[in-house]
């Protein structure tokens, strides 16, 4: 099975061939490195930019304005903050021009902690992104979803932010991408750049086919009856693990992988919470004005009389950064034990 970095690479290769993707660019995105997480190795259209995030976003906006499709990368979301007014403009261009100029551009950037990345390689951006109107925002938790969401992002006529949970870039899924060789070693041989001299290396791309994950649609990854856990990205996998462990103890947890932050799958959340009466939102962006608070607001507004317990949010602590020492990082971003305890507490709560 492909890991997420390979899945992204396959999606970009498919898009170069079939979706008129003309440019994939960013810092270290082109040869020889092919991205700090190797997600852009071997592509025909990839190129390296100056170390200038504002230039990268501006370039993407201009390319999109000219009508070409592009994928721009900000190497880590920690460095996207100096582009935020450009992201605002990219998001409001269609609206400000009364529908005249749409910007079909995709920006991808690694997010979140989990690799001991210290203060400036651990930020999250999902809650920030939810406040930049005019953008669609997606975040996969599996390689197959990464492939399907990225194809949808590139096809979309709007700007789409594709958030890559960096701690999952080497994690393999349990579903093949359509056209992917079933042998992991074969895939590696064909599309992973060799160590050392790469000047003559060319990828031998498998013929993957179109597989789309619709933006705005979540996925129920675990069926359950007693509580709904809504998460995305890295913490979705933790939620799955916890649901599996609790199932052995007779606790039934429904897990929703939101996949799209905006637009989001309210129907799926509403149906699930109406059934369970209990909800926990989990993500690692900081907790004050966290996107999960919006979801809880809506749960309270629309499902108040069906709730059996107070809705809860577990998110990153509201501190300026994520410290390097494991004691600091682990105390800052949600941990498995904390999530598990919260699930049990909510289930035991009596109205």
């Amino acid at each position, binding site marked *: 099975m492909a890991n997420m970095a390979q899945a992204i690479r396959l999606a970009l290769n498919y898009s170069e061939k079939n979706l008129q993707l003309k440019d994939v660019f960013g810092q270290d995105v082109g040869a020889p490195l092919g991205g700090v997480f190797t997600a852009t190795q071997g592509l025909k259209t990839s190129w390296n*930019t100056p170390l200038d995030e504002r230039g990268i976003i*501006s370039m993407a906006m201009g390319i999109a304005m000219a009508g*070409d499709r592009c994928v721009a990368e900000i190497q880590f979301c920690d460095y996207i903050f100096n582009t935020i007014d450009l992201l605002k403009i990219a998001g409001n261009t269609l609206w400000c*021009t009364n*529908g005249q100029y749409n910007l079909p551009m995709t920006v991808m950037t690694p997010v979140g902690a989990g690799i001991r990345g210290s203060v400036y390689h651990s930020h999250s951006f999902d809650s920030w992104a939810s406040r930049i*109107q005019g953008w669609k925002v997606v975040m996969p938790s599996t390689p197959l979803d990464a492939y399907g969401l990225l194809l949808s992002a590139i096809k979309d006529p709007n700007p789409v932010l594709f958030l890559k949970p960096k701690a999952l870039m080497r994690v393999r899924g349990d579903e093949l991408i359509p056209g992917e060789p079933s042998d992991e070693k074969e895939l590696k041989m064909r599309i992973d750049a060799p160590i050392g001299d790469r000047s003559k290396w060319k990828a031998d791309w498998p013929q993957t086919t179109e597989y789309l994950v619709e933006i705005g649609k979540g996925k129920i990854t675990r069926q359950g009856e007693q509580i709904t856990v809504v998460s995305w990205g890295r913490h979705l996998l933790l939620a799955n693990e916890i649901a599996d462990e609790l199932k052995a103890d007779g606790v039934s947890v429904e897990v929703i992988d939101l996949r799209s932050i905006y637009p*989001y799958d309210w129907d799926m959340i509403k149906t699930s919470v109406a059934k369970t009466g209990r909800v926990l939102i989990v993500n690692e962006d900081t907790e004050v004005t966290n996107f999960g608070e919006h979801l809880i607001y809506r749960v309270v507004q629309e499902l108040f009389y069906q709730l059996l317990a107070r809705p809860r949010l577990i998110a990153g602590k509201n501190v300026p950064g994520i410290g390097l020492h494991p004691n600091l990082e682990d105390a800052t971003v949600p941990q498995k034990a904390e999530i598990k305890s919260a699930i049990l507490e909510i289930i035991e709560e009596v109205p």
Partner: protein
Amino acid sequence: MFSSRLPLGFRLKNGAWGAFLSYSKTTSSKSNSAKAEAKKKSLIKMSSKKAPATAKSVKSSASSQSLGQLSDKTLIQMLDLMIKSRVLEERLIKIYRAGESYFWIGGPGEEAWGVPIGLLANKGQGVKHDFLHLHYRCTPTLIAMGMPMKDSIRLMMNRVTDPSTGGRNFSNHYCIPEMNIAPVTSPIGVQYGIALGTAHAQKRAGAKAISIVTGGDAGTAEGDFASCLIWASRKDNELPMLITVQNNYWGISTSYEGQHGETNIADRARGFNIRSRVVNGNDPVESYIALKEEMDYIRKTGKPSFIEAKVSRLYGHSSASGANLVTSEEDCIKSFSDKLVSKKIITEKEVKAIWSGYEEEALRATEEARGEGSPTSESIWDHVFADNENSDWRKF
């Protein structure tokens, strides 16, 4: 209508924008303006040695020998368009003063530079034509490209018929996809970066089209200006861009000296091996010839070029600073008009007729625009996403 609820002058004294600045270039010391004017002339004189200009492709009469050998027809056309743009801007200011609009910002005084850009651009839609990334003093360029006066007035009066924004944005924030006019933004400088992308796509298309970017001198302090110089000049990856700065020596109320250590802004481009020159942007002939030479160079080589145009700012920054006429700076229309009259290319009577004709047109357009509809409250959700896909979370 706005004017029926608030008395004339209310917004100037107490409105959100009127309160912003009680001072302006018009109220700042005249000696500063005169000093800036003297310095401007001195710097242009210095730079002109580096860029002797001739236009070879235009016919001239004996009377226009000292006017860059441009034909009488071109000279009169430029004067006509400059007057048209000025009349329009002054009409926009009157609309603001009458309480029929909330804010004015524009480019009166910068016509001698803006009109030639519009005349020389390869007009059309798509990568085979020039893209124009303009700032909010670009009315002269768009008038020269054929924008009807009424469309600017509709934008000023927030009419639903405003073809640029549908009543959503300020005056001079134009957007005309049919002519590759990229949306004008309020944040200054961002257009310098966005132009890189259209230039990149044009280079790929290989049609000799270029991206033209304009901005003010104050906006060159933004990082996007530096980004533009860096990305446009990368070795073997140069971009077909005409990078320009309209240096009117002011950034709202900050003087040139308050921001710039460099002698000329054009000097910065030279540091990136970008061909660069300074022109007297109050002279439409010098501007026309310089623009044509640089556009030809870019189309031929695929490489960027840079022009800094020294211009006047005749009505201050915006309505927030009063939008009053400055008399201490050169009025490029008066200078050019006097020159053409003295050379008997046009008569004073003909010049007056141009003014009065456009004044009538602007007044008529205002009356027509006044009667057009307003955007509806329900329309706020329109065009958040393409094809009007729902973006209201209440309906997810």
